[in-house]
C-alpha cells in the first residue's frame, strides 16, 4: 500500500486519538498562561450593551432552554448573564423549556445568586430579585401562553409558590412588563421564540445558542427580529470578556483553538493524499 492509500484509508480511531490528545494538552499546567485573544463582535456586544442600559428594577426574562449536552457552550453565557443582571439589580424571571435542564438551570441560578454575596456584597433573594418558574412541556404553547399571562402556563413557580404571592411578580402580567427576553437554547425552542414570542407578541428578543445553530439565525438578526446572537463557545467567551468575567468559555477557547488546528491539519493531509493519489493514477493512464 502506498502512502496516499494508507492516508486515505486511515482508521478513524487515529483521528479520534490525535484529537483527544490535542484537547487534553491545552488543559495541562504547561498551557496555563496561554490565552486566546477574543474580540467581541457586534451581535454579542448589542446584547451586553442592552442589559447594561437597563435600570435597577427593570424586568428581564431569561429562558434557559438547554439540556446537559449543551452545558459546555451555554452554561458560561448563563452564568455571565445572570451575574450581570444581578449586579445591575434587575428583576430576573428565569425558566426552562428543556425537560432535562430543569434542575441544572435551578442550580445555576442559585449558584450565581449565592456568589453575588462574595463579589457584590449582596445576595439576590428568590421572590424579590429573581424567580425561577421551572419547566413546562410543549415550548410553543408555553411561549404563547406567557404572551397572554405568565400565570397561564406557570400558575406557580418551581417551588410551588403561586405567582401572585411572589412579591416581584405582582403586577407583572406578560411580555409587556419585561424589557427583553434572552433565550439560551440548543434546539428548536428558539424557532418558537422567534415565531411566537417576537412575531406574535412583539417581544424584544436575543438568542444565545450552540455554534452549529448560530449561523441559521443570522437572517433573523439582519431583519432585526432579534437584536443579538451569542454563538457557541466563541460567543460565550466574547460575552465573558465584555462582562470582564473570564470563566470556563474563555478557558475552553484554548481547547477549541487546538481542536480546530488539528481538524484543519487532517483536512490538509486528506487533500494532499487525494491529490497524490490522482497524480499517481494519471501517469499510469497516459502510458497506456
Amino acid at each position, binding site marked *: 500500500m502506498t502512502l496516499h492509500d494508507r492516508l486515505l484509508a486511515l482508521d478513524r480511531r487515529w483521528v479520534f486519538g490525535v484529537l483527544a490528545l490535542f484537547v487534553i494538552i491545552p488543559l495541562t499546567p504547561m498551557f496555563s498562561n496561554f490565552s486566546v485573544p477574543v474580540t467581541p463582535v457586534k451581535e454579542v456586544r448589542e446584547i451586553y450593551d442592552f442589559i447594561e442600559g437597563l435600570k435597577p428594577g427593570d424586568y428581564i426574562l431569561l429562558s434557559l432552554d438547554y439540556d446537559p449536552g449543551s452545558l459546555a457552550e451555554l452554561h458560561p453565557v448563563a452564568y455571565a448573564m445572570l451575574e450581570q443582571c444581578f449586579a445591575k439589580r434587575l428583576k430576573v424571571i428565569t425558566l426552562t423549556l428543556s425537560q432535562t435542564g430543569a434542575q441544572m438551570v435551578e442550580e445555576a441560578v442559585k449558584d450565581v445568586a449565592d456568589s453575588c454575596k462574595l463579589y457584590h456584597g449582596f445576595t439576590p433573594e428568590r421572590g424579590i430579585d429573581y424567580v425561577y418558574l421551572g419547566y413546562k412541556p410543549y415550548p410553543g*404553547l408555553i411561549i404563547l401562553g406567557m404572551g397572554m399571562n405568565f400565570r397561564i402556563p406557570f400558575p406557580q413557580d418551581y417551588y410551588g409558590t403561586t405567582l401572585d404571592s411572589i412579591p416581584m411578580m405582582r403586577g407583572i402580567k406578560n411580555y409587556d412588563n419585561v424589557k427583553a427576553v434572552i433565550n439560551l437554547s440548543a434546539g428548536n425552542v428558539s424557532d418558537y421564540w422567534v415565531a411566537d414570542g417576537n412575531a406574535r407578541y412583539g417581544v424584544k428578543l436575543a438568542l444565545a445558542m450552540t455554534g452549529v445553530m448560530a449561523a441559521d439565525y443570522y437572517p433573523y438578526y439582519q431583519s432585526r427580529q432579534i437584536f443579538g446572537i451569542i454563538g457557541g463557545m466563541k460567543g460565550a467567551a466574547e460575552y465573558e470578556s465584555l462582562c470582564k468575567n473570564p470563566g470556563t468559555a474563555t478557558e475552553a477557547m484554548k481547547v477549541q483553538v487546538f481542536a*480546530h488546528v488539528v481538524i484543519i491539519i*487532517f483536512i490538509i493531509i486528506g*487533500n494532499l493524499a487525494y491529490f497524490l493519489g490522482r497524480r499517481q493514477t494519471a501517469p499510469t493512464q497516459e502510458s497506456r
Partner: protein
Amino acid sequence: MKRQIPLVLVFVFGVLLAIQYFVPSEASQRGYEFVLDWITIIGIFAMVLGIWSQIHVGYNKIKHRSEDWQYSVVTLVSMFAMMFFGLSFFGGLHGTIFRLIYNNVFIPIQATIFSLLAFYIASASYRAFRARSAVSTVLLVAALLLMLRVIPTGPLADPINKIGNWMLLVPNLAAKRAILIGVGLGGVATALKIVLGIERSYLGKD
C-alpha cells in the same frame, strides 16, 4: 367512521385555529387557551403509551434472550429507579437521591454523548472535505476560513475575521433565507394538505 371522525376533527380545528389567528376578541382568546390546555393533557396520556411500549419491547428482548438483552435490563431498571426515587416521599424532584443520580449520572452521560460530535466532525471532515470539484473546493475553503476565525493568526486575524463575518452575513444569510422561505412555504402547504384532508397517511387504514 374510523377515518371520517379524525378527518372532520382535523378540518374543524384546523379552520377554527386559522381563523382564531386573525380574530383577537376575548372569546377567540379563551377558546385558544382551552385548546392549549387540551393539547398538554393529550400529550401526557401519550406518554403513558410510550412507557408501555418501552416496557413491552424491553420485556420481550429479555424474555427471548435477544442479542444484547442485558442492555434492556439496564434500561428498564434505570427507568423504574428514576421514577421510584422521583416520588414525593423521597423528596420528589428535589430529593437527595434523585438529584444525586441526575447530577452524577445523567448530566455527565448527556454531555459525553454530545461530545462525541466533536470527534465525529473530525472524522467526517477528514473523509469528506476533498477538493474534488470546483464546488467542493469552495466549500472546503469556506470551512477552513470559518475555522481559522477562532485561531489566533496574528496579522492575518483581522482580514480572516472580516472575510468570515462577510461569509456569515452575506452568502450564508442569502442561502439560509432562501431555504427558510422555501421551508416556510412548504410548511404552509403541508399544513393545508392536512387540514383539507389531502394528506392522510397518519390515519391508518379502515
